[in-house]
């Protein structure tokens, strides 16, 4: 409890543990701790507050996924790591928007982190594909799939919510929904 109530910048190991434990307060402290640094980088290099938000959240998600999948090895300070990821992401965006003048104002030390942003790119693509497929799936399939596979609700609860007369009907419905979702997901390029 004492750790959770701490409000300053979390230590690096606190962050790792917090992510693994899904700690809300550590995430918040992490977010608040390094956002100003990233904001400074972006707004002084042709960006605005919204760009900073996008880039920073992408970086946090990269960190989150890495820690969750267990292949995160902290080889430098967490601050440097986050800064490097954001810097890399921002450079990529600048060149996509043709706004990159070949010169970037730096405020921190940084590492080269090409590999990690590339991996995240694949995850991004799959995330977007899944989102699109679910949208196309429509109701009630979308809710059934989300309830069962994401929110881990039981078939019995789902059955009651949707007013199916018996569990078998609900299971058949869910099966059909899943088959359609697969089709939609893999049809996308």
């Amino acid at each position: 409890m004492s750790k959770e109530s701490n409000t300053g910048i979390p230590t690096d190991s606190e962050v790792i543990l917090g992510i693994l434990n899904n700690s809300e307060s550590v995430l918040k402290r992490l977010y608040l701790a390094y956002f100003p640094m990233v904001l400074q980088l972006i707004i002084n290099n042709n960006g605005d507050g919204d760009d900073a938000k996008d880039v920073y959240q992408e970086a946090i998600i990269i960190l989150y996924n890495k820690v969750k999948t267990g292949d995160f090895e902290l080889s430098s300070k967490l601050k440097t790591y986050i800064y490097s990821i954001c810097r890399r992401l921002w450079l990529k965006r600048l060149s996509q928007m043709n706004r990159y003048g070949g010169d970037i104002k730096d405020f921190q030390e940084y590492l080269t982190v090409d590999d990690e942003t590339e991996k995240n790119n694949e995850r991004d693509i799959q995330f977007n594909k899944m989102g699109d497929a679910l949208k196309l799936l429509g109701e009630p399939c979308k809710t059934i799939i989300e309830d069962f596979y994401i929110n881990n609700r039981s078939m019995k609860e789902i059955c009651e919510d949707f007013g199916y007369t018996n569990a078998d009907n609900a299971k058949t419905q869910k099966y059909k929904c899943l088959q359609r979702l697969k089709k939609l997901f893999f049809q996308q390029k």
Partner: protein
Amino acid sequence: MSDNQLLEVIEKYLNGEMTRDERARFEILRNENAEINNKVTEHKHFTGLIKQYGERLELEKRLNAIHNEIDVHALEDELMIQPSFIVRLWRNHHSKISVAASIAIFAVLCTMFFTGYLNNRDGNIVQLRAKIDIIGKKTDQLGKTVKSLNPQHSGALNPGNFRGTGFAISSNGYIVTDNHVIKDADSVYVQSSDGKSYKAKVIYSEPATDIAVLEITDASFKVLGALPYSFKKAETDIGESVFTLGYPRDAMVLGPGFLTASTGFNGTNTDSTAYQVSIPVNFGNSGGPLLDSRGDIIGIINAKQTHVEGAAFAIKSNFLLKAIQNIPADSLKKPINTNTKNVLATLSRVQQIKKLQNFVFMVKVYNQ
């Protein structure tokens, strides 16, 4: 077993809801049947993707919630590297600054105008110019004083009271010019193109045709070379390209032109002794030779009658030849051998003039 039921079994297996026996049996089935094995892996992967999607969505929601608590604008202001004070001042107030500057410039100009500052400038310039004039006058006076201090030049250097042109008719010092040039002369000098002056005397004059013949009597005169030109006896046709050399000023000047009429014009009557030519001539040209393009002498410029605009007249060369024959024998000390050989015919104008210039003289006349 239908696909639907198989899926249910697979889900049970993956969620760990099977009993130990069921699990063992399913694992045997999975090992034996590659199709079922594939289905298990596939389903695991796909549900994993759905879970990932859900987790990410959830995470983004949380991050957005945290983000909304941050006052981004305040942070931005704090973290933006501020440009220098002057740049910010300009960005914020440039319109006001521009207006102020225009008013200031306008005010300064108005003040300058009304205080007469601009006019004073002009006054200064006029005064300066006046000063320069005064200095110029003083310099002139000084120059005159210096001149008056010098001893008087000899008569030979005096430019003469009246001036004309003459040219040699023989190599031994006989020169022909217009009668009106040497009329009433006390003394006559001729000056060659290289600047040497020789005393000369009039030995014959013919007022009717306005021809006069001089003889150089100066001891320092050396015999000229053979004359390069001959005298044309026949009439020359209208349209012939002609030229003259003369001394309308201190230097010898070429006057090119055309023969424009075969008669002259003497006030009211036509004058058959002269040609009309379109050559710009001045009084100093009087007595100069008129040559055609081959270098033959076809006449003597007679500038006395140049009251007609754009036209001059020249006495025809056959009257010159007659006049030479009319010279009384007792006034000739040496024979006049007029040349009949022309060496200029094939030369260019520039070469012709080079050869001619030694035979054309300035005639300077002095009378009281």
